[in-house]
C-alpha cells in the first residue's frame, strides 16, 4: 500500500535546510537511529548470533523466550529464534532495499525518457504502465512469480518489476513539471545535449519526490517480500528469512506463539521506522505537505 510522494513544482528544495528541518522531527530522528541499528545488525548479525541459524536440537524444541541460552526461544526443530532473526535481517531487509533499487533504476529511466522526450515513446510507455497498474500490486508480483517460478531471487525480481510503474509515473510527472522551466530552456539554448540536460538538470530537480517515495517504498517491499515467502513463493525453508519464519511458526501458533510474534515484530518495527522517516523526509523536503 503506497502513499503519494510530494508533488514538487520543479523548485529545488533539497539543500542544507532539509536536514535542519528533518532534525526537528523527533520521530524521524528516532526512526533514523532505529534504521541505523537495523543496518548494523544486517552487517554484523551473523557474527553476533549466539547459534548457527540452521543448527537443530530436538531436545530443545519449542522453548519459550527467556530460556537460558535462547533469549527469544527456539522453534519446532530447536533452532535458536534470535540467531535466525539476526541472520534473517540481512536477507529480509536486503531484499526490500535491492528490490527498491532495481525498481527505481528501471522506473526512473523509463519515466525520465517518457517525460523528457514525450511524443510517441511517452504514449507507448504510459499505456504499458497503465496496463501494469491495472493489476493490484501483490497480484502482479504473484503473476510474475507464476511465470518465473517460486524462489527467493525470482520473488525479489517480481516485486521489483511490479514496482517499476510506480517509479516511472512519479518520475514522469516530476520531469513534466521541470521540463518547461526556464533554466531547462536556457540549457537548450546553450546547446546542451539532451542527455546532459536530463542527467545534469532534469534528474536532480526531480529527485526529491523519488527519494521520498523510495524511502516509503522500502518498507512496503520488505513486507511484500516477506509476504511472498509466507505464501511459499519466495525464500524457502530452512532459510532464516522473516517471512519463512512466520510461515513455519504458523503451524505452532497455539503452543509457541513467539515463533510468529518475533519475526512479525521485526518486520513491523522496520516498516514503521521507514514510514516515520519517509513522512519526516517528505515534510522536510516540502513543508507545505505537513499534516497531509
Amino acid at each position, binding site marked *: 500500500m503506497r502513499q503519494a510522494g510530494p508533488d514538487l513544482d520543479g523548485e529545488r528544495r533539497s539543500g542544507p535546510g532539509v536536514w535542519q528541518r528533518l532534525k526537528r522531527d523527533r520521530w524521524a530522528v528516532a526512526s533514523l537511529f532505529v534504521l541505523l541499528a537495523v543496518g548494523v545488525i544486517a552487517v554484523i548479525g551473523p557474527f553476533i548470533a549466539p547459534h548457527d541459524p540452521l543448527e537443530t536440537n530436538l531436545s530443545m524444541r519449542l522453548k519459550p523466550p527467556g530460556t537460558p541460552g535462547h533469549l527469544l526461544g527456539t522453534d519446532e526443530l530447536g533452532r535458536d529464534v534470535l540467531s535466525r532473526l539476526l541472520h534473517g535481517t540481512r536477507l529480509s531487509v536486503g531484499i526490500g532495499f535491492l528490490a527498491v533499487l532495481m525498481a527505481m533504476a528501471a522506473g526512473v529511466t523509463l519515466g525520465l525518457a517518457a517525460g523528457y522526450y514525450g511524443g510517441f515513446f511517452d504514449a507507448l510507455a504510459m499505456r504499458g504502465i497503465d496496463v501494469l497498474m491495472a493489476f493490484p500490486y501483490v*497480484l502482479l508480483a*504473484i503473476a510474475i512469480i507464476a511465470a518465473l517460478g517460486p524462489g527467493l531471487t525470482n520473488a525479489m525480481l517480481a516485486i521489483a518489476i511490479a514496482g517499476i510503474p510506480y517509479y516511472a509515473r512519479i518520475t514522469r510527472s516530476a520531469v513534466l513539471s521541470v521540463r518547461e522551466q526556464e533554466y531547462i530552456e536556457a540549457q537548450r539554448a546553450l546547446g546542451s545535449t539532451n542527455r546532459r540536460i536530463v542527467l545534469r538538470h532534469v534528474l536532480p530537480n526531480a529527485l526529491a519526490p523519488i527519494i521520498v517515495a523510495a524511502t516509503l517504498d522500502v518498507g512496503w517491499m520488505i513486507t511484500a517480500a516477506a509476504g511472498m515467502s509466507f505464501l511459499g513463493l519466495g525464500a524457502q525453508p530452512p532459510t532464516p528469512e522473516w517471512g519463512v519464519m512466520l510461515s513455519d511458526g504458523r503451524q505452532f*501458533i497455539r503452543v509457541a506463539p513467539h515463533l510468529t510474534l518475533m519475526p512479525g515484530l521485526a518486520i513491523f518495527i522496520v516498516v514503521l521506522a521507514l514510514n516515520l522517516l519517509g513522512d519526516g523526509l517528505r515534510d522536510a523536503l516540502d513543508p507545505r505537505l505537513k499534516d497531509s
Partner: protein
Amino acid sequence: MTTYIARRMLASIPVLLGVSILVFLIMHLAPGDPALIMLGPKATAEALERLRQELGLDQPLYIQYVRWLGNVLQGDLGRSVQLKREVSELLATRFSATLLLTAGASLLAVVVGVVAGVTSAARQYSLLDRVSMLTALVGFCLPVFWLGLLLQITLGYRWPIFPVSGMNSPGTTGLLDTLWHLVLPAVTLATGAAAVIARMTRSSVLEVIRQDYIRTARAKGLSERVVLYRHALRNALIPVLTVVGLQVGFLLGGAVLVEMVFSWPGIGLLMVNGILARDFPLVQGAVLVVAASYVIINLLVDVLYAFVDPRIRY
C-alpha cells in the same frame, strides 16, 4: 454523463486487452517448455504431446493468443492440469468467497476510515485526533499476514471469540455462520486500507473545513454533524474516493495473503496452489479474473466521481 461513462468504458478496453496479453504471457515467459514444467520431468512423451496439443503450444504465439482470448471471451478459461477440472468452474465457486471477503473488508475500511478521518479533522490536535492518527500509522505499517496471525492468537485461541479458519463451521452453511467466520479475515484485510482512508479523509476534510461555505453553514445554525458530513465531507470526497479505489486494489491483492492465513476458500488460495503446482491455465484464469475485476472496480470509481462531483468530465 452518458457520454462520459461511455468514453470511460471505451478507455478500459485497451487496458483489458493489455491485461489479457500479460496474463497470456505468464505461461510463455517461463523459461523452458511449459508442458514439461507443468507435467514434470517424469512425464511421458505422449502425455507431453497431448498437453501441447490441448494448449495449442504447437501453434505460433499470436495464433495461440487469439485462440486463447476467443475462448476467454466465451467464458472458457481452459482446464486445470492439476485438478483436471474446468478453470471457470473452479473459479466460479472460489470467486464469490474472495468477493465476499473483499467487499466486507472494503465496507469496513470505508466506514471506519471515513468516520475516524472526519472525527480527527473536526478535533484537530486533540487527544482523540492524535490517538486515531497513531492507530492509523500502526495499522498502516502492520503486515497484513502478521495482523491476521495476531488476531488468531488473541481473539481465536487466547479468548476464543471468533473462528480462525474456513468460511463455515463443519456441517453448517448459514449466512450468519459465514459472516461470523468473516469477522477476523475482514478486519485483518481492512485495517491497512482503513488507516490510509482515515489519513486521507482527515487531510481532505481539514482542507475544506476552513472554507467560507462551511462558516456559512455553521452560521446558519446547522448542527456540527450536518456541517461535517453533509457539507465538508461531500466536498472532501474526491481525493477520498481516489484512495478508496486504490485501496480496493490493495484489498484484492492482500486477500491472497489473508485467505492463506485464515484458510478462506477464495481465489487467492487456489492461485497460490496453482503456482506451486505450476498449473498455468489455473493461474492464468485466476489472475485474469482478479485483474479484470480491479479494472471494472476502477471504472465504477471513475463513474462515481461524476456523481459525487458533477463538474468532473474528462
